[in-house]
């Protein structure tokens, strides 16, 4: 569980006032942070990363206190287990794509590096410097770099902004998979409905530095009803069947209707309505 309660002055469209955010994030949850331009989304991520220090506030992650202005505790960014995808990518110009990703990788994680390079579709560019990449390619490198340390808290600032529909669909899948596999808590800033719908189990709307709305979508329900979000769906040509993966299930079926499902859809295995043959592995 991550508890955040911070106050900080900022200039907003309506004039200078306080950014004042109080939140609790469930461990392992994926929360979307939305809101108009300049509403303070990036600022919240930076506060969590330790790149801004609030006038007053407290950030507690699980057992450990990352920040407490009263008790004068303030962990440096290095001491917080985070992965941060910056809005402007902030890749290191002197390093190639591989070196950028490898920079923070633990010694024994070479396979993860390779996996991430493949998952983000950067194989052809591993030896290029960032200056020779397109905007979308840069964003993919930034995502891979942020993931390579398996952070406890993942902060994503518009990670798909420069990506076309197909590429971002692919990356959403990668992200969801890793998120589930590692149980990372993720906070995602995005302007795009589709990201939010496909990924998040909670949507927090910021306006002028305040939380305007906070909805749990799917997830809470899914937790109660046993519904889960699809994180992978593919048709296996050899075995001639569909394959769906969620956090805790793997489902196979030869039912052609399964074609209708997409990544991010909520599904549940409900009793008695004979809609298909699902076998739980």
């Amino acid at each position, binding site marked *: 569980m991550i508890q955040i309660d911070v106050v900080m002055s900022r200039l907003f469209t309506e004039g200078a006032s306080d950014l004042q955010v109080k939140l609790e994030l469930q461990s392992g949850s994926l929360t979307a942070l939305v809101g108009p331009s300049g509403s303070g989304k990036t600022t919240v991520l930076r506060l969590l*990363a*330790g*790149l801004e220090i609030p006038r007053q506030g407290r950030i507690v992650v699980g057992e450990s206190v990352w920040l407490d202005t009263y008790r004068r505790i303030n962990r*440096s*960014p*290095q001491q*917080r*287990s*985070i*992965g*941060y995808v*910056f809005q*402007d990518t*902030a*890749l*290191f*110009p*002197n*390093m190639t794509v591989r070196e950028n990703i490898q*920079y*923070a990788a633990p010694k024994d994680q070479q396979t993860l590096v390779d996996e991430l390079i493949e998952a983000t579709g950067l194989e052809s560019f591993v030896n290029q410097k960032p200056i020779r990449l397109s905007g979308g390619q840069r964003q993919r490198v930034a995502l891979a*770099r*942020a993931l390579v*340390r398996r952070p406890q808290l993942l902060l994503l600032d518009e990670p798909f902004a420069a990506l076309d529909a197909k590429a971002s669909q692919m990356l959403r899948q990668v992200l969801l998979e890793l998120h589930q596999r590692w149980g990372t808590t993720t906070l995602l800033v995005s302007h795009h409905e589709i990201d939010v719908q496909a990924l998040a189990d909670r949507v927090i709307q910021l306006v002028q530095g305040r939380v305007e709305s906070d909805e749990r979508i799917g997830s809470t329900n899914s937790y109660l009803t046993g519904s889960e979000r699809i994180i992978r769906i593919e048709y296996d040509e050899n075995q001639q069947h569909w394959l769906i993966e969620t956090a805790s299930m793997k489902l196979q079926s030869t039912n052609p209707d399964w074609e209708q499902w997409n990544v991010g859809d909520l599904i549940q295995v409900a009793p008695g309505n004979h809609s298909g043959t699902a076998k739980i592995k």
Partner: protein
Amino acid sequence: MPIDWDPIWLTLRLAGITTLLLLLIGVPLAGWLALSRFRLKPIVEAIISLPLVLPPSVVGFYLLLTFSPTSWLGAWLLRTINLQLVFSFEGLVVASLIYSLPFMVHPVQAGVENLPTSWREASYTLGQSPTKTLWRVLLPNCKPALLTGIVLTFAHTIGEFGLVLMIGGNLPGQTRVASIAIYDEVELLHFETAHAYAVLLLGLSFAILLLVYAINKRVTV
């Protein structure tokens, strides 16, 4: 009069060693100055430039006082590590280090300060220390500034002379560097020999600087 090559080699050795050592000392110092938010930083910055404002021979005289075997520091160095800093090549190196320090520190510090903060922040959020960030991310991205530091240090050490003359004692093969040799020739009104030395020194330095700049161009393009 035939050219004596000893002073030339000695000069190049002195300039090379000084530049190398200053890379090792000056660059981390510059990085620290660029990154730290230490309140007395302007004072440290000003102090580093101070040796520059005194005439080299006067700095040399003060160093002489400090390092002479009758001073406590000089006596202590001699006693413990048998290091004598006056009238020796080691002394020249130490003096050149002090005198050329600002030429390495200031440009590199400026270079690091001018980089976008987001690279530093990105490295920190990736859990990497300021030191690793400096060496792996920041310094490699301010090559022109490093180059400036190297060129200014190298060239200045070659030309330095008042200081070297003072602390070195003009010992052939040991502390008689090229600048002193030229100086002596001019003093003797042996203009021909002085010209020859000057041309040689200029030629060599020009070749080295050109090489440095050309390599730099190759590397960055």
